[in-house]
């Protein structure tokens, strides 16, 4: 099953490599990983999506917690949560038919064209990973030139907060 883990860790040099190293060392899978400092500059917030049985994910959570730099780990998929991923996608758009088709599809998905040349469009789209996949599928008629995805960021719904 797919799990989304939220990790709060010290914003220290080397902390990220410890987390990434742990996954490869212990043969855990990483689907996506995002990380950045939080409003508190001494803390980083990481979101990892991983595939694994409950037993494996339990081990991942425990092993992550064991890393000295890690402060808290939460499996967002255990409760109600929101996940978002950002995608930038560059498409060939050299005919008006292609341009219309891309714009229409982007509208349906609430994406925006953020850059254009006579031959290309670049669309920005945010949403769950499924939605981004669906957008790519919907555009199967157009030719994709480049896809950049940020990986998932997640947060719990409601009043639950992951903080110190």
């Amino acid at each position, binding site marked *: 099953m797919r799990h989304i883990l939220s990790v709060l*860790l*010290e914003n220290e*040099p*080397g902390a990220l*490599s*410890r987390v990434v*190293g742990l996954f490869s*060392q212990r043969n855990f899978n990483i689907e996506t990983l995002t990380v950045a400092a939080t409003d508190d500059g001494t803390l980083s917030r990481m979101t990892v999506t991983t595939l694994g049985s409950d*037993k494996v994910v*339990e*081990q991942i959570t*425990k*092993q992550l*917690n*064991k890393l*000295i*730099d*890690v*402060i808290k780990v939460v499996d967002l998929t255990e409760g109600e949560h929101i996940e978002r991923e950002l995608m930038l996608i560059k498409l060939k758009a050299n005919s008006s038919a292609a341009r219309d088709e891309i714009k229409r599809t982007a509208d349906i998905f609430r994406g925006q064209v953020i850059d254009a040349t006579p031959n290309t469009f670049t669309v920005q789209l945010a949403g769950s990973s499924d939605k981004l996949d669906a957008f790519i599928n919907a555009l199967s008629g157009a030719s994709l030139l480049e896809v950049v995805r940020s990986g998932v960021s997640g947060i719990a719904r409601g009043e639950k907060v992951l903080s*110190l």
Partner: protein
Amino acid sequence: MELLSGAEMVIRALRDEGVQHIYGYPGGALLHVYDAIFQQDEVQHVLVRHEQAATHMADAYARATGKAGVALVTSGPGATNAVTGIATAYMDSIPMVVITGQVMSFLIGEDAFQETDMIGISRPVVKHSFSVQRPEDIPSIIKKAFHIAQTGRPGPVVVDIPKDMTTPTERYEYEYPKSVKMRSYNPVSRGHSGQIKKAVDLLLGAKRPVIYSGGGIIMGDAHVELAELARSLNVPVTNTLMGLGGFPGTDRQFVGMLGMHGSYEANMVMHHADVVLAIGARFDDRVTNGVDKFCPTAKIIHVDIDPASISKTITADIPIVGPARDIIKEMIQLVKGAQTGPDAEAAKQWWQQIDEWRARHGGRFDINDEGLMKPQQVIEMLSKVTNGDAYVCSDVGQHQMFAAQYYKFNQPKRWINSGGLGTMGFGLPAAMGVKMNFPDAHVACVTGEGSIQMNIQELSTCQQYDIPVKIICLNNQSLGMVRQWQDMNYESRHSQSYMKSLPDFVKLAESYGHVGMKVDKYADLEGAMTEAFAMTDRLVFMDIAVDPFEHVYPMQVPRGAMRDMWLSKTERT
């Protein structure tokens, strides 16, 4: 406040941490630190002959005392030579602080002379590591390193120090912190009372209970409590290889080591148990054999300070996270206060059954009156000559298993061996680390002619510092453990498991200024060994010829249940 250079702060911080010996080897990146060592005499430096030995000495000091040992090695090759020792400590959860030199900070990343990314190389085998970025952080980093190494589930910590952090002319205010507070590191300090209560209820209702305890009892100083709990419940106790000495080896309730080379009775007890209380043990694959067939009728209670050890390989029915000693104490109170004690009739039957199993095998081995000595006989003699209270520091191989099976450890922290990594070459430096800190104790290094040659150069260190350990080399002229597997699984094709061109160990020992002895008849063994241990101020290398064809038994049948064992070359359960 006193002003000290980074180099001086390193040594001062070690002193303030109570460190007496550091084991190391100098090099360019550490020259400032070595100059600071020269200018004081409170922290004694022991110069090894290979950095691996420095880490094993520090590690063995920790195993014998419970306190973190310290190794000091230079950048590049010094650091990489230390990696095996760090991994050895990591796998057995041993507290250790390894200080590594590093190239100047502004050269890092430029493939500078003797640069290696030690933080990166050691990352998978450390509990944590620090890279010093400002000299004034040295005291607090060293304080944290010891704190992390020694608390919770212990482990090795690396402190990497670029040379420019130790410049003698740059001085800073020095103060050694009294305590550590880390928001991201707070090991569990007590077990969950509700879980402990459930565990005790289960144990009191059990008909065929067993305690399976490991290294966590030794490092967690819980042997006294363990014995009390075992007595109050009248249950058999088995120990892992790492747990030997955690329960008295000569006690009636002790059924021996369990696992791959465990005793017949220990493995039978485990297989038939209805409740297994695992404490400070991690269900290693050398213990469980086939996990799907492991203890088919048992409910499992697992006490461990590291949540990640619990339900990693075998799912626990009652997990309890916390320090063994406090949890056992709480269990003892509950047993005492319980309205009904353990089921006496069931206990009687259980012990009857166990005694039958004991009689069936009981660690027997065939003695050959004509031919060569059996390795088991040598260990039994060692046990006799040292009254069972020597520090036995072992290398890795058949001799290690024989030592584990036939030396009766009645005290914790006396059996010092590499279990998790199985590092050949561990034994001699380990014995040295122990002997330096317990000069009046008998310290034996049980080794094989293969293992001893992996750190034989340390005979020189022993001469320099007068470290009179006794080396008991079970010389079977082969990599016996490998050969045994080849006999059992590869139709005796002994691919590269023989030892040709062995040195004359007697002359070799003598050339380093030590005493060498060769023994090839059992009749001479007791006299020679007694003489060796009587020479309290000399290192004695006993080269003892043993039967090269001997196998270690029992041996579990791969992927079988606990009870599936070979009992000799021809007998199977």
